[in-house]
């Protein structure tokens, strides 16, 4: 040891790849790796018109995106890491085909197919044509690769999802890790098909998922999203978070009011989103007689107050009230009236537009602002609405379309979808009317869930909604004189709502009644696709950048 050390030293705290994938435990660990949290990010809502972050913008919403944006580089890198690992598993399964039962092999293979399909789907959605391979590539081969057409990759994605659907179990036992299921493969296939405009494939996949008959909508819309609701039957594909295991939703204090120690809606629901919730008569606010801009939370779809904290209601122990003259507010727990830091009358950094998020949040987020709500990538409501959307686009408007939408809407009202008098049930209409209906429904249903960006890109409305500016309340002095004094609090006017459910706030701004927070921009000539990471273009001459970047 002292004078002659053995030089054949092997890693002390790592394994060797030489003979890995040789038994069930090893392959099982490799399959688990495909579901590490880093490979399954949720989309950032700030890229959309549903959010406002005071006066700040993202590279997407300021149209300054380029191939050096870190988020875009990480998404690319992590997707391919997962793909390479899935390929490795698929190509190593024959090593154990003799010693493991076929069902086990199917489970491993099914998950690898599912993950590979999901990652390629993400890639073609964001980047268009991408580098595609299903083998284990070496360096020399890597530099010969170029971009494969989106259509070709898409065909492979469908094939992978089909393989996954045929191999994966319908469900897992309660003592078994819940990995991907048959239903997940079908639903995720529907999502990419819809994004790519393959309506029929989307319809069939969604239908097949519905026909499994094992998913149901969670009865309470608000409760569905709370940390305590783990793995509900509505969850088709999701992964947990856990404080115990350190997998967290961090920095949720950005969403919370200042009275509970949050950042006062530093990241807040936008006024665009708020205005898009229908009234309880099923009409948009500009059409509904039930809407009163001075009482904007009244007579709205229940999902409105489940998503955005209604003024004057208790929220996490305090009455939430951004009114500039509400300088004191009730602490519900102590019964004391305390200083209200959620009004800009007291606090400059209270919510700039008066709104704070409610969806997902509850007392479990306090006091450390670490949240362990499930990460929901696909829930049954999405399957239903995808089915409806595909059928509408195919112009196959039938009762199944209306039922699908109505099931989702009725759940929000906590009634059966057949009780059409108890909620504003959707009746039949033209393709374009129903298109609007399903788009508005999605916006109400999925707010704050990381789905809006995909929707506005798929619907090609990003150039419209992301070229509208972000507005908030006037500064306190002006707010008092121009809004509060004339009795115009909270909204001074009712904006017009367009076919996408988006309000036109410009007249209010031009009347000097609201404040411009940020000048949102979207460059339609290029931004429907992201650029390939700059580094990839520069080191491999076979790759050509997306147009405009």
């Amino acid at each position, binding site marked *: 040891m002292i004078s002659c050390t053995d030089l054949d030293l092997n890693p002390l705290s790592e394994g060797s790849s030489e003979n890995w994938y040789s038994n069930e435990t090893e392959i099982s660990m490799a399959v688990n790796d495909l579901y590490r949290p880093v490979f399954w990010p949720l989309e950032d809502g700030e890229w959309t018109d549903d959010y406002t972050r005071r006066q700040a913008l993202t590279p997407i919403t300021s149209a300054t995106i380029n191939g050096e944006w870190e988020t875009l580089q990480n998404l690319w890198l992590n997707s391919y890491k997962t793909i*390479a690992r899935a390929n490795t598993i698929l190509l190593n399964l024959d090593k154990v085909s003799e010693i493991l039962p076929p069902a086990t092999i199917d489970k491993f293979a099914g998950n690898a197919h599912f993950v590979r399909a999901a990652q390629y789907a993400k890639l073609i959605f964001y980047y268009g044509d991408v580098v595609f391979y299903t083998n284990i590539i070496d360096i020399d081969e890597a*530099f010969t690769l170029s971009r494969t057409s989106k259509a070709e990759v898409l065909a492979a994605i469908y094939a992978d999802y089909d393989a996954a659907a045929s191999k994966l179990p319908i469900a897992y036992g309660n003592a078994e890790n819940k990995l991907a299921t048959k239903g997940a493969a079908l639903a995720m296939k529907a999502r990419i098909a819809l994004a790519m405009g393959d309506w029929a494939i989307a319809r069939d996949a969604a239908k097949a998922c519905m026909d499994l008959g094992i998913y149901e909508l969670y009865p309470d819309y608000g409760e569905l999203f709370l940390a305590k609701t783990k793995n509900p039957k509505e969850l088709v594909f999701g992964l947990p978070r856990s404080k115990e295991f350190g997998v967290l939703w961090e920095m949720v204090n950005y969403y919370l009011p200042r009275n509970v120690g949050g950042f006062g809606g530093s990241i807040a629901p936008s006024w665009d989103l708020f205005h898009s919730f229908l009234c309880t008569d099923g009409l948009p606010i500009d059409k509904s007689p039930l809407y009163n801009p001075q009482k904007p939370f009244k007579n709205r779809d229940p999902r409105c107050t489940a998503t955005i904290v209604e003024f004057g209601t208790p929220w996490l122990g305090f009455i939430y009230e951004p009114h500039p003259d509400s300088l004191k507010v009730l602490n519900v727990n102590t019964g004391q009236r305390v200083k209200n830091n959620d009004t800009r009358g007291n606090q400059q950094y209270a919510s700039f537009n008066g709104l704070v998020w409610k969806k997902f949040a509850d007392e479990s987020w306090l006091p450390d602002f670490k949240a362990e709500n499930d990460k929901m990538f696909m829930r049954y409501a999405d399957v239903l609405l995808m089915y409806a959307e595909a059928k509408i686009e195919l112009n196959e408007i039938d009762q199944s379309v209306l039922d699908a939408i109505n099931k989702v809407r009725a759940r929000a009202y906590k009634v059966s979808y057949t009780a059409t008098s108890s909620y504003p049930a959707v009746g039949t209409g033209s393709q374009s009317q129903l298109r609007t209906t399903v788009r508005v429904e999605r916006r109400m249903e999925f707010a704050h869930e990381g789905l809006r960006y995909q929707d506005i890109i798929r619907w090609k409305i990003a150039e419209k909604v992301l070229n509208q500016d972000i507005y908030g309340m006037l500064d306190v002095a002006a707010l008092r004189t121009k809004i509060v004094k004339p009795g115009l609090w909270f909204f001074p006017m009712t904006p017009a709502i367009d076919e996408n459910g988006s309000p036109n706030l410009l007249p209010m701004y031009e009347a000097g009644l609201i404040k411009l927070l940020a000048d949102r921009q979207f460059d339609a000539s290029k931004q429907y696709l992201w650029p390939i990471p700059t580094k990839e273009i520069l080191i491999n001459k076979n790759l050509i950048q997306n147009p405009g970047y």
Partner: protein
Amino acid sequence: MPFYDQILKKMKLTLLLLLLTVLSGIAADTYSQSTKLTLKLENVRIEDLLSQIEDKSEFRFFYNEEIDLDKKVSVNSSDETLVNILDKILNNTGIRYEVIGRQVILTNSSGIASVSQQSKTVTGKVTDSSGEPLPGVTVVVKGTTNGTITGADGNYSLGNITADATLLFSFVGMKSQEIPVAGKTGINVTMVEETIGLEEVVAIGYGTAKKSDITGAVATLQGDAVAERRTTQVSQALQGAISGVMVTRDNNTPGSSATINIRGITTIGDSSPLIIMDGVPINNINDINPNDIQDISVLKDAASASIYGSRAAAGVILVTTKRAKAGELNLSYNAEYGVETPTQLPVYVDVIRYMQIANELRWNDNGNTSDEYPLYAKDIVDNYMSLNAENPDLYPNTDWVGLILEKYAPKQSHTLSISAGTKAIRSKLTLAYDKTDALYMNHTYERITSRFNNDITINKFLSATLDMYFKRSIREQPSLDPMYNMLIAAPVYAAEWSDGRVAEGKTGNNIYGQIKYGGFRNNWYNQVGGKLSLDFTPFDGFKLSAILSPNLGFDKAKNFQKKVSYTDWEDPTSILGTLEWAKTTNLYESRNDNYQVTTQFLANYTKTIKEHNLNILAGYENYYSYYENLSASREQYDLEAFPYLDLGPLTYRGNSGNAYENAYRSWLGRVMYNYQSKYFIQGNIRFDASSRFHTDYRWGSFPSLSAGWVISEESFMKDISWLSFLKLRGSWGTLGNERIGNYPYQATIAFSDAIFHQGSTVVASQTAAQWQYAIRDISWEKTESFDVGFDAGLFDNKLRLTGDYYRKTTKDMLLALEIPDYMGFSNPDQNTGKMETKGWEFEANYNNRIGQVNYSVGFNISDFKSTMGDLGGTEFLGDQIKIKGSEFNEWYGYISDGLFQTEEEVTTSPKTSESVRPGDVKYKDISGPDGVPDGSITPEYDRVLLGGSLPRYMYGANIRLEYKGFDFSMVIQGVGKQNVRLEGLMVQPLMENWGHVPKILDGNFWSMYNTQEENLMVKYPRISQTSRGNNFAMSDYWLINGAYLRLKNISLGYTLPKSIVQSIKMNNVRFYATISDLYTFDNFPKGWDPEVSSSGYPITSSFIFGVAVKF
């Protein structure tokens, strides 16, 4: 005397000499002592006198014709011995005599030395230039092993010395002196301190050599020059001291170190030099206390470094520590106190301007609409100072920098040293303590170092050294480094409410509250090591050594992050939130346990045959190192006073651990030969095997050759009186590097965790995957190096010059090959890529004396440029780039074209995005996907190389003066040229959209409020958050020449006169004062030191006063 007699005598003389050589020691001298002579002669030739003696006695004189016996002498003696008579008459004649029986031999004092003569005892006293006795000086009879050392009083006594002998006085750090005895029995010597002379012995790999004998590029630095800088860390003291040694730093945190690079950059990986302390590799030069250093040798070229083959590609620094000398017995104590103060601090606009500029930013980003007060209302901006006076809590005006940074931070250091040496055992023990406080609260650096060096001479054949050292350093810091947050914090946010409670800051970003109450981050580093070496010398010139050197490290870190709640300014009971860095109180601890063991077996043979000098070295070395890490944490503590793991809740606990090891085995050999100390040649070879490579690719061989020619020794150069010494040197060699992970050839499976639902519960499961692509045949990176140089001494070696030119080519560079991200692996380590570094160095030193003033002046300058060759398809992209043809870390970005001035110009020009507006930086459209400008500015197609980022023409200079008890020295240091980027806090307004605004921008940025003419004159772009990406992207717009000249160090010392010191029973007392980093000449924006990083701890000037006493 008849003629034939003379012939006979001359013949006899030759015969007799032979005979006497054999018989010496046998012959008795009773006759000469018993025979008494009486002579009375006036003014006779010596030869005649000798004849008379021959006539009167049986004495016979022998001499040859070179002896001048014509001198006339007088003698008047009665009954005196021959010896007494000869002593008198031959005094001052230059003639020596030796009485052997009845024969008397006469020689010239410069004549034949091989004749054994009567031996005497010589005594004397050795002192230093100040007259102080010098103990431990070695006194030997030249060419013999007969020697002694001076005692504590500087006295020596050496017996058995012949009259023609020459005594050699030597002492480390002093010029050796040769003094002929010439019959004298008392010789007092004053030793003169050696600066850097050609006779100096310097450390080379696995041994030492005379500087004049060295054929490679080796630079040396005396330990005093290191200690004199008064820095805590050795690395900092090397700045500007040695040519070709680049020392860079970007902050001056207490206890901070600096980065050392020798002769530039040789590899993309780790370019830090190998550090050898007393012959054994160590991890960090900063583990050594500067006061313990005897000297430092820097092996710069392949020829001198390749004996360390494997890990020497980036150069080698040899540190020799101080040892005790025989005859030494003293205790010395050194205390110093001082303060540090920032050289510069950035200045920001006042609160009113801050609000105006913050408003302007929003106004610009919202399209310059009618509302020009989008953030701070007009009445607030206009009346802020009076509002602030009324209610400073609601309208704060916080001077964050003034609140957090003290003007001065104290520092102190104490060193106690005891040396005791006998002929058999020589021991030196030092104990040192350093403490430096930071400019902000709750931050200190403390260090205790101890070293115990022992030399034991067991017998003529066997000797041993036993060294031990211990280091403990403790860094205590607040839970967060405040610099960045302090600098961006704007004055409109409160740090403390007027009654002293923690204020909100910018919505919880209150760095003052955080460092004051937010817990701590403490690190403890302990190191224990030693070296045991046995030297066996079976016969003269041949030495066998066995060395065992273990080094053990134990590090501990503790990070206790406390939740700091802030309350409402008017309601102390209303908790508004917690400061943003810790929502709960958490404890994180980690431990590292490591050790390294070096074993060496060396054989060294030195032989001189006539004018041939040969030195052969062969050796074997083994090295093993092991590291193990452990960390544990708990979160959400309820109790905030107990930073221990047990007191946290069980639910939120975490832990982790890992370990790694690596090993080397090496064979090495060296042959050094010179003829007449005029022609030198040296060859080295080293074979290394590393555990980092697969067994088939494990061994690397690293040969080198060098040669030197001392031209000044040639006869045709002898006549040039002003040239004392000139040597030409040339060397070639290869060096290796393998510092790239510990298992690079193995495709390892990395483990992690994922969590899953099991029904409605959540479980964690282990995961496994290959993360890195592995290349199995990865092997040594090789650097081939070529060097030519000269050493010259002019005017009696008063002026010494050294110059070198070198070229280093690195092949098979080990680097993480940049593979496409779509491969899905982390970049693999691979042998690919080439780079080349060319450079030169020049050093000049002059010392002399004017009257009683000793002075020396030194200057050094060096330059290098590293160019990347083919990197095997690899490119390292970013703001600093490495691609084929670029310099190492060359700036890479857009070419700017001023600022956009008009809407029309924006519309018609290529730009980075649609968000660009007038006032933003304009760039040139270089290319596009089709190879031609495409009308838009993109990172893929429009960035170009903008020039190197590394410093060029690094120089240093020093002046030293000594006058009586006073000594003075001054060091300057600088960089001749460097492309420096202004970035971040230096030039960006409202960082993070709410931060402060640097004062240098005010009145100098593009603004809608300016006239067109004013906008043409401004230096900085418009204030915008949206355009931040455009405006502050890497481009030549932000590059400035970062050249600087720094007044690095000024020291003044006074040594009390001997008479006073001795009257208070001391040996030596010296007072000194040192100022470091006092002033800089540079081009940087006001408030920024040329070396500091934009959010780093300031570079500080230090003012130190110290006293050193010696008993």
